[in-house]
């Protein structure tokens, strides 16, 4: 029975944590960006309530919380009756609306004006947009309703032909036509450089920067809040235990080292959550998959005690997985012949200082190695070597220098090695049953 109950709690914990890490659930209160939040809310309120037109860009690196900020602001904005009744929203994404024709269709659809537009033929884009906004005027109120345009991946809209959409939106927002608010979200700091002059001059040049630069204690605090359970969790006792467990976890020296390493490489919280989610850390604790985890055995032996579900060791393991070089992983699976070719390329790179090579040179280098050994167990014919070489090319470990070399023979096509010295050596250390002479060959300074 007890196991059943624990299982039930487990599921709840999972639900909560998964909701947080996978869904990027909105927090009740934003931390660190209160000023930006206030600014944006003020701005949108002016459009929604007073019918003022505005345009603004939210700029910040990926994972800085731009979308989260906007969503929070919208949530707070819609709490107001007046705004909720009035405001129309149009959400566009640069990834989806890849040209202005599609974007305009999408705008029509999101404003529910398909039947109004019908089969009308429009002369120009501006005319069409003006018609759409005009149509909104004939709503229940005498004045027109405010429209909020959210342009996600704003920089991609700047690549549209003539930037028609941006020009028209900014034009409407600047002149006293229908009240619109244009909010662009982008990760490019140089986004204004992408705008044409006539578009730029119509933009209000209002930018909200989200260049959050958390300190490590803040980062740690964030990890802690992300992991701990909320107060409204049904089982209070368990919740307390869990949160204490998280507390001790965050104070652990080795865990702090790991997090510091992550912090130093990236402050992106998306990446952090993917790291915490990554299978070896959080999940083996909740789901007893890997019988190695000691917490599981303790829980099964004494079912009365609630196990501490997070162990520093698991986080370390997750971090190790996270920081392994994926190319080294791929090198591990190569056949011995392919590995020998890689070593030959490495030597060629050393000798000729990074000049490109072709198959003949690599083969020649490999042959020189074989000649020095009395027993040649690797006696391969040229076509077999060619096949191995092509496999390396397929894996994109080597790349042709110019792609248009259709006219040269395959064995003379110039290639470049896409690996560096340390990656090869590291892979060689881990390679299962690597023959010693191959290892020595790789170590030696001159092929």
């Amino acid at each position, binding site marked *: 029975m007890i196991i059943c109950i624990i*299982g039930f709690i487990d*599921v709840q914990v*999972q*639900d909560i944590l*998964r909701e947080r*890490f*996978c*869904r990027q659930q909105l927090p009740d209160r934003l931390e660190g960006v209160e000023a930006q939040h206030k600014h944006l809310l003020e701005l949108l309120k002016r459009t929604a309530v007073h019918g003022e037109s505005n345009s603004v860009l939210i700029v910040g690196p*990926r994972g800085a919380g731009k979308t989260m900020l906007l969503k929070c602001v919208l949530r707070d904005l819609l709490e107001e009756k007046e705004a909720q009744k009035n405001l129309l929203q149009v959400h566009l*994404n*640069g*990834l*989806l*609306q*890849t040209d202005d024709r*599609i974007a305009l*269709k*999408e705008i029509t*659809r999101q404003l529910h004006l398909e039947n109004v537009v019908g089969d009308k033929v429009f002369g120009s884009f501006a005319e069409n947009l003006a018609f759409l906004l005009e149509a909104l005027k004939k709503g229940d109120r005498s004045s027109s309703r405010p429209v909020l345009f959210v342009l996600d991946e704003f*920089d991609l809209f700047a690549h549209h032909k003539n930037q028609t959409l941006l020009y028209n939106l900014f034009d409407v927002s600047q002149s006293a036509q229908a009240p619109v608010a244009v909010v662009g979200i982008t*990760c*490019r700091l140089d986004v204004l450089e992408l705008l044409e002059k006539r578009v730029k001059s119509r933009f209000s040049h209002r930018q909200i920067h989200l260049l959050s630069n958390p300190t490590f204690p803040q980062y740690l605090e964030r990890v802690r809040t992300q992991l701990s359970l909320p107060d409204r969790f049904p089982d209070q006792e368990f919740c307390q235990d869990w949160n204490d467990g998280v507390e001790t976890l965050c104070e652990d020296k080795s865990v702090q080292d790991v997090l510091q390493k992550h912090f130093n490489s990236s402050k992106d919280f*998306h990446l952090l959550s*993917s790291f915490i*989610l*990554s*299978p070896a850390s959080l*999940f*083996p604790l909740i*789901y007893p*998959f*890997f*019988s190695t985890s000691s917490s599981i055995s303790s829980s099964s032996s004494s079912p009365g005690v609630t196990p501490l579900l997070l162990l520093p060791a698991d986080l370390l393991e997750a971090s190790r997985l996270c920081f*392994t070089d*994926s*190319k080294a*992983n*791929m090198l*591990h*699976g*190569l*056949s*011995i012949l392919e590995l020998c070719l890689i070593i030959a390329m490495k030597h060629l790179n050393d000798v000729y200082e990074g000049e490109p090579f*072709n198959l003949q040179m690599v083969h*020649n280098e490999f042959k020189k190695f074989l000649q020095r050994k009395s027993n040649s*167990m690797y006696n*391969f*014919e*040229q*076509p*077999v070597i060619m*096949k191995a070489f092509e496999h390396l090319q397929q*894996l*994109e470990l080597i790349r042709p220098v110019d792609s248009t070399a259709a*006219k*040269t*023979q395959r*064995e*003379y096509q110039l290639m470049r090695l896409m690996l560096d010295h340390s990656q090869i050596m590291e892979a060689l250390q881990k390679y*299962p049953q690597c023959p010693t002479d191959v290892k020595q060959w790789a170590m030696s300074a001159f092929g």
Partner: protein
Amino acid sequence: MTKMLQHSGYEEERLQRVAELLPCREVQAGMLLSLMGQPQQCSYPSIFIYGHRASGKSHVMQVLLKELELPHATVSCVECVSVALLFEQVLLSFFGCDAASLLPRSPSLSDFVRIYRQHCSQTPAKQTRYIVMEKAELLRDTDANLLPALLRLQELVDDNVTIILLSEIVWDKFRPNTGCFEPLLLHFPDYSKGELQQILSQDKHPSYSAEFYSSYINILLGVFYSVCRDLRELRHLAALNFSKFCEPLAEGKVKETDTHKLWRNIEPHLKKAMQTVYLREVSSLQWEQLQQMEERECGALRGLSAHTHVELPYYSKFLLIAAYLASYNPARTDKRFFLKHHGKIRKTNFLKKNEKTSNHLLGPKPFPLDRLLAIFYSVVDSRVAPTASIFSQISSLVTLQLLTKVSHDDQLDAPKYKCAVSMDFICAISRTVNFEIIKYLYDFL
């Protein structure tokens, strides 16, 4: 082994069956299961799985999704020559054919997301939906927006959906210029030699014992393991050559336990297989036929690369030889090779500083038509007039791809060529006309 796959969200028997179907991939299956969580829980937007060919990526995904009966769509990016096919396949497997028929003729990503959202709101997901993309590296060649959009599809369609990308190429080569939503990375390591042996031994022949088959696999791996670790390829080779392995047994020459004799019988055969069937120079059918008639025609068992003999007209042969010489010898040395009274010029005199590497490593160099003809006249033993016949033979050599034209097509007065045949090939050709080409090659002086 099966103990590893315990999961509160699924029935015990099913997990048992999954574990049986996935030999040597329990750890990966367990990881994936824990990442996927229970069917009704929300899941991470995108997962990127990479590993070598035939390391079980697709297989594990298929078995998990099918056996656990999770809603999924499997799309092979090789099949999807246009994005329309991709969208159609996803909509078809999630919402049936009425959804797929709503797609306009050349759908944009926007259309796809709209239709998805529309249907998704009608039939909200009780379980996580999965979209598996095989050979995801091909997504890079399509529309630049497709990959970043797919990675955050969960956010775009507002549904509990997870994209799983499978590829042989590492994630670093996928990342777009301005970055994108980072998927979870999962590596499927290659099978070790022991694991390969274990898996390959599973498809044993019904009329022979398991140990016998496993010893055969051991021999096969001994020959091929250093070259190829692709499970699928090895399995194919094992199936092709097994009958040969059993031959002495059927004739009653040896017993099953006499491994050494069996090895002596099969090893040269497998080596031959590496030079032909492994390289796809003969088809599997041809290989089987050759195995049967082997006693009579031992020599016939040669691959394409061994066929160095091509019938050419007499002058064409000399033209080709001349082209080869022109491609691989520096123009400065022509005097030494083709003039009667060149005096004593040694190789060291020609040697320039940067010319230590031989031309046979660097590949053929282009040469003008005049030089080709000049060499041709001096190597051919009879007097030949520069007639149209000679020129047409040059162009037919180009058509045969023995020569390649380097200069642009509109350059008529001084076209440039390159010789595109291998050393072995040209040696065979020159033997047929009694010409000792080695004497005329600068690299072999």
